């Protein structure tokens, strides 16, 4: 293997369909719809007023920004499943985000002159807050490859372990629903007034969501028996084509997938499952399906593919980590969750899509794909620990 595999020891999450990992998983499998009218900030002037909003957090702390609160909730869930048993200086934090603390920036610019608010407006603030809360004193990094951030973060975390710059890494992604991002996507007409329907013939856009997903990673040889799965390979590639839209030929995504598979020394025939980015925009899904058909080639018709953004909304920086965790849970539980919102298959997106009902398969090797603003593409190759 070109790069040493890294163990994903445990995971924690907070999402619109469940306040912890177990609730997230069961929500995915039964096809829970996490989309609702947004209540936390004004949306009356927007075309679209729906999103995957987390209505209540288990513990809300005054003074912490919402992004930090989501991270703390996911971290509490993670720590309930695994301990950070390494010296603090050897524990690193690597988080992916598209928006960081932008809501704090809005408040700072609009009405709150406090210095605390100004510092929190910087996008890397929540990662530092999480590191302080965890007592982690190793490297603290914030990755921002837009909506691919949650995948890139796992790759950077793996690099820290392979380079012996840390013994444990708490990594993942997060983003919040806030007026800033709703207004932006609303103005771009990227949001649908229908529901998000990945790979559906009638798909008309995405819906945004919020969430945080964290995993604890360790060198595979150090993980002992505790393991949810392994990260075998990761890669990124730039489109170099457009600031806001994917390359219509998907060349960057294809390069990222092929490089990740090469790193993992995994052939296409070894892939058991694909977690697609599947935003439900007309262009993304068409491009992504075409790339997957090219890469999977003769195997495209037999490899199950799903997309979970119909259930959660597009959780931006959290999305790729949630999808990676979903791949590992699918392996553990022997079932692939359905693609909520997919009812009428698009002939242009011909893949073996897991549509309205979960499918009983136990994928060992999964491929997870991500795309983001700025032509950011990322791919992860994961191995589940299912027997």
């Amino acid at each position: 293997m070109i790069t040493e595999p890294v163990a994903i020891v445990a995971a924690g999450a907070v999402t619109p369909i469940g306040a912890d990992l177990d609730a997230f998983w069961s929500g995915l499998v039964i096809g829970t719809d996490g989309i609702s009218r947004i209540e936390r900030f004004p949306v009356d002037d927007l075309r679209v007023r729906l999103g995957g909003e987390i209505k209540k957090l288990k513990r809300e702390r005054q003074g912490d920004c919402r992004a930090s609160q989501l991270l703390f909730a996911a971290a509490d869930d993670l720590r309930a499943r695994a301990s950070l048993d390494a010296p603090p200086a050897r524990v690193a934090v690597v988080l992916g985000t598209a928006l960081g603390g932008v809501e704090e920036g809005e408040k700072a610019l609009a009405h709150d002159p406090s210095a605390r608010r100004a510092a929190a407006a910087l996008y890397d603030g929540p990662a530092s807050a999480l590191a302080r809360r965890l007592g982690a004193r190793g490297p603290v990094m914030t990755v921002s490859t837009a909506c691919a951030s949650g995948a890139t973060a796992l790759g950077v975390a793996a690099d820290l372990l392979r380079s012996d710059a840390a013994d444990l890494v708490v990594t993942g992604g997060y983003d919040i629903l806030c007026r800033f991002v709703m207004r932006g996507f609303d103005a771009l007409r990227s949001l649908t007034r229908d529901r998000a329907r990945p790979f559906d013939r009638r798909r008309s856009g995405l819906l945004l969501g919020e969430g945080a997903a964290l995993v604890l990673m360790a060198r595979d040889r150090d993980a002992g028996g505790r393991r949810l799965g392994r990260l075998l390979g990761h890669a990124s590639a730039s489109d170099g084509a457009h600031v806001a839209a994917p390359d219509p030929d998907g060349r960057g995504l294809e390069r990222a997938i092929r490089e990740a598979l090469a790193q993992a020394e995994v052939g296409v025939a070894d892939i058991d499952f694909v977690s697609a980015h599947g935003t439900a925009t007309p262009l993304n899904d068409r491009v992504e399906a075409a790339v997957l058909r090219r890469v999977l080639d003769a195997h495209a018709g037999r490899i199950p593919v799903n997309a979970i953004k119909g259930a959660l909304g597009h959780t931006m920086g959290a999305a790729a980590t949630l999808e990676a965790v979903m791949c590992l849970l699918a392996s553990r539980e022997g079932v692939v969750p359905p693609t909520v919102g997919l009812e009428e298959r698009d002939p242009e997106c011909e893949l073996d899509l897991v549509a309205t009902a979960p499918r009983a398969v136990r994928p060992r090797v999964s491929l997870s794909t991500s795309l983001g603003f700025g032509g950011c593409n990322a791919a992860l190759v994961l191995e589940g620990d299912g027997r």
Partner: protein
Amino acid sequence: MTGTEVAAVGVVTGWGQSVVALPSDAARAAGGRRVIAALRPSLVGERFRRATRECLLGVAAVEALLREASLGREEIRGGETALVYVTAAAYGSANHDFIVAGAADAGAVSVGAGAARTEHSVGGLRKAHAGPVASNTLHFPYTAPSAVPAEVAIEFGLTGPYVILLGGASAMIDGLWQATLLLGRGQCRRALVLAVETFAECEPLWARGRWLLRPPLVESAACALLVPGPRRATYAPASTPSPLEALVRVRAGETLACAPLIALALARASGGAGPLRLTGEWRGRRAGLVWETP
């Protein structure tokens, strides 16, 4: 893993082009000014009409690098070039404009599309540069930190591996380390490591966080070209600032993620041989990278 070396560094700052323009004492040269702004580069082309100043500074830094290395654009084009981008603050100006435009839409301030920017906007923020207020639709993608490397990738045809890190000087040390890994694993044949920092649009906001950002805040864009070479890079925490870190602080002022790249440029300008020790600090964490020949 193969070794690496720094083939060239391009620097543009509020003080001027290249490290030759840096004063001997930035604080004294600032004369009490909190922000030393960099001019909007005058790049030609319809594509740049809507691009933000920070995007243009990123392009200008790569062009400065190509000039220094006497390289043509075709020599970095394609999938063999990785792009690693780091910033702590450059997305702030686009966010500011988007928020101000939204407030204007809501009637909080009078800012019309296509009008000159107001001198004072929400939160008492002062606009540093006259120009049209970007419309919401077209401007929103530029609020993403990924906009700057996207514009650079489009302009120079870069389609290789891609990493974007957020933070100050320590994040740039992380970025340089990432570049050495990409080269060492053979995932690219060269790596551009780019940083852009702008402050002017959000000057009052940054003034509130002065324990993080010590004036003078000097707008900067810098880019290093890393290629396979004889030196081994060692990445580790650092407890004290390297002499180069201290030198950049004195000569350039606060340049956040650009600081380690300016340090590289200063080291190259001095022609120093032997191990190259870079450090960078941000939010209380100091990272270090040492390049040495085994």
